Structures are given as C-alpha cells and as structure tokens.
C-alpha cells in the first residue's frame, strides 16, 4: 500500500506500574498506534522511541507539573507530549504548553478521542478541544515567550497565501488538529499537511506553534 501513514510510536509515562499496565491494555490494539513501551522514569522513555518515526509520550501524572514537562521535552525533543488533565483549566494548561507540552486531554475523554489525540501529538499538533485551544493560543500570543515568524503582517508576505491556505491558517489559529481541518474542509490529511508546509514557508515560521500564534495575532483565528 504505497503512501500510507506511519503508525505513531507511543510511550506511556506513569509512575505507578498498575497505571502503566492499564494504559498498555487499553491502547495496545488501537489503529494507528504502536505501543513502544511504558516507563516510570525519564531515562527509560528515550530508549523506547525509534529515531525518525512519529512518536508521542502520554504523561499520566496528577497533577501534571511543568518542570516534568521541561525535562521530558529536553529528553525527547522530537516527540509530542500529551498530558492527562482533570479539567481544561487555562491556568494549568498554559504553563504546560509553555513548558513544551504538545497538548492536554481530559481524563473523561472517550478512548477514541485519546487515540486520536496521541496520533495528533505524535505529529506535533496542538491537542486541546478547539475552543480551549483558541483561547490558549490567544493567551500565548499575548505573551512574549514564543518566537515570531519572519513576516510582520499579511502585506509583508513575499508570496501571498492562496484562498485554501488562508482557510487552513484560520483553522490552525482556532486550534484544530490536521485531522479536524481535513474533516472540516473534506480534504485528506496529507493535503492539509502540504498546505501547512507551504504556509510555514510563506510566513517564515519554524514551527506549527509559531504559525498559529502569528495567525492569532493577525486576526486569522476569528470565525468566518
């Protein structure tokens, strides 16, 4: 089957052995996810993740702490970090995002949503419910801690965004994952990814977060 998506390699990070086993049992048969391992300490996490493959770490720590996220991010910089939270409290979520978390998912979520979140986190997408993601991005955009892409405004772009790219950028600024954007626009995820690559190039953005923050600052996140 040419061109099929690679599975996301998942490592579960939980201190309690029973929790690790429970997550392993729940997630090992999910489509699109390959369980690489489960660990209770940082050193073991890195050994489970193969280089060059999309990877995610599911962090089960209650409450999740930004200092742990920072250490995990330093250990596995290429991987998505998805944190389990009790509630989507922005006061809790924003420090986690600033520390390097890719997203947060509620402990009340259905398994399907969790599996979907893991796959999205493995690709470095912001995983939060869209209304929360939009507010989190707006709050982050007001802060100074994240870098700015090269372009100052839409008028400064060397090459203008196409209509479709502008649409994708709007959805990005609203905090949608690639799958959500694809489903909204009825396009394949690969096509959305191609549009995003083009958008990053035109904005001079080095990451998804930079592009999203640029879009929020320039009013692209507003609903049509």
């Amino acid at each position, binding site marked *: *089957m*040419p*061109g*099929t*998506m690679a599975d996301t390699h998942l490592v579960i990070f939980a201190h309690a052995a029973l929790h690790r086993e429970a997550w392993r049992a729940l997630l090992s048969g*999910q*489509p*699109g996810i390959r369980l690489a391992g489960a660990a209770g300490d940082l050193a073991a996490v890195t050994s489970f993740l193969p280089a060059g493959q999309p990877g995610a770490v599911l962090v089960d720590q209650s409450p999740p702490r930004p200092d742990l996220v920072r250490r995990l991010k330093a250990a596995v910089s290429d991987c998505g970090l998805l944190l389990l939270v009790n509630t989507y409290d922005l006061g809790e979520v924003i420090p986690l995002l600033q520390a390097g978390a890719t997203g947060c998912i509620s402990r009340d979520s259905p*398994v*399907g*949503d969790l*599996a*979907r979140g893991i*796959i999205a986190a493995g690709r470095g997408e912001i995983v939060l419910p869209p209304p929360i993601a939009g507010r989190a991005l707006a709050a982050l955009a007001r802060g100074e801690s994240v870098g700015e892409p090269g372009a100052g405004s839409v008028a400064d772009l060397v090459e203008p965004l196409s209509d479709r790219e502008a649409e994708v950028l709007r959805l990005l600024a609203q905090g949608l994952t*690639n*799958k959500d954007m*694809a*489903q909204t626009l*009825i*396009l*394949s*995820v*690969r*096509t959305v990814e191609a549009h995003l690559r083009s958008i990053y190039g035109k904005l001079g953005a080095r990451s998804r977060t930079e592009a999203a923050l640029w879009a929020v600052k320039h009013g692209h996140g507003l609903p049509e």
Partner: protein
Amino acid sequence: MGTNVANHASHDDQRTRVAVVGTLAEFHREPIPYNLGALVQLVSELRPDLLCLDLTPEKWQRGDFDGLPPEYREALLPLSHQTDIVVVPIAGQHPPAEPSGEGWRGRAIAVLRRWLAYLQRTAPNPAAVVEGPRHHLADLLYEAMAWLAGPETYRAWKAHTDYLSRQVLEVARRDPGRRILVAVNLRHCHHIRPTLARHPGIRVVPYTQL
C-alpha cells in the same frame, strides 16, 4: 519501450486510486453474523485517505448515526474518528425509498428481500459480501427488486447511484492523487466502478490493491 513503460507507471502513480466495496448495509436490523472487528481491521489496514459513505451531509454534521447500518455505525465511523481517515458523506438530501409494490410484485419483492437477508446472515466475513458469488447474487436480487417496483423506483435508484458517482468524482477532483475507499450498498458498485474508470485521472482498483 522501457521509457514508455516507466512513464506510464509514473502517470498511473499520480492518478487518484479508488476502490469501491459493497456492503449489505440496508439490513440495519439484521444481526451481522461476522465480527465487525474484521471490517475494522480490513479498512484499518487499507488506511484510505478518504472514505466515501452513503450518508447525507446533514446526518454527518448532526452526528445522527442512529438509523445507519451497523457497518457504518459500529465499525467505519468509530475507526475514522480516531484515525486520519476523512469521512466524505456522498448521499443526496433525499435518498430513494426501498423498492416496494402492490400485489404479486410486493410479495415477490418481500421474498427477494428475505433472500438478501439470508445472504447477509450467512456471510462468513466482510470479504464474502465485498466480492465473489454472494456479492453478485445480491446485486442481481437488488436489480430484480428495483425492476419489480416499477420504472419510477428503478429510475430513482439509478439517479441515486449516478449522484454517488458524481460526488466521488468531485472528491477526486478537489483532492487529486489520494487514495479513496467508497463503501456503499453493493447494488451501486457495478455502476459506480465503470463510471469512475472512464475518467483519466482516476484508477479504479480492487480494494486489496488500494
């Protein structure tokens, strides 16, 4: 000669690949004899980019899946929800009613419907419905039912099939070069495949080669 073959292969690779699989999805009150996990496994391994379903956009947007067949409700929709498979609802606003009739025609349709239900009940796995003798026999029974119901019903079903084909073509036009799986009632398969195959940008393949 070798270069021509290479060019041809390269052209083929850029075309949108479409596989059309048939379900006996009409019988949503019939118990499915095989494990739907087998269908999930099949589609999960195919991992199409786009999954076209005979479902109206309104039902899709409302998340109203109650009246849908179990293949959709319990297998394909949950799978697409948690993977990168994008669902494309391709049905029109008013899908035609099931064939029915008065007198002997109505009785004959009822008998044919029982045969169809039997074919579904005794299917050992999804592949037995997707292809092979059971698939072709069920297609013939559907054709006979539509014919018995009269020209108006026959035309309505033909129009519905044409609409589904056009929607798949539109999807392929908007997002060329992707892998599309169409999962519809098997009565549509034998009409959709040749319609799609006539378009140069589309390559219709068996589902195993998607």
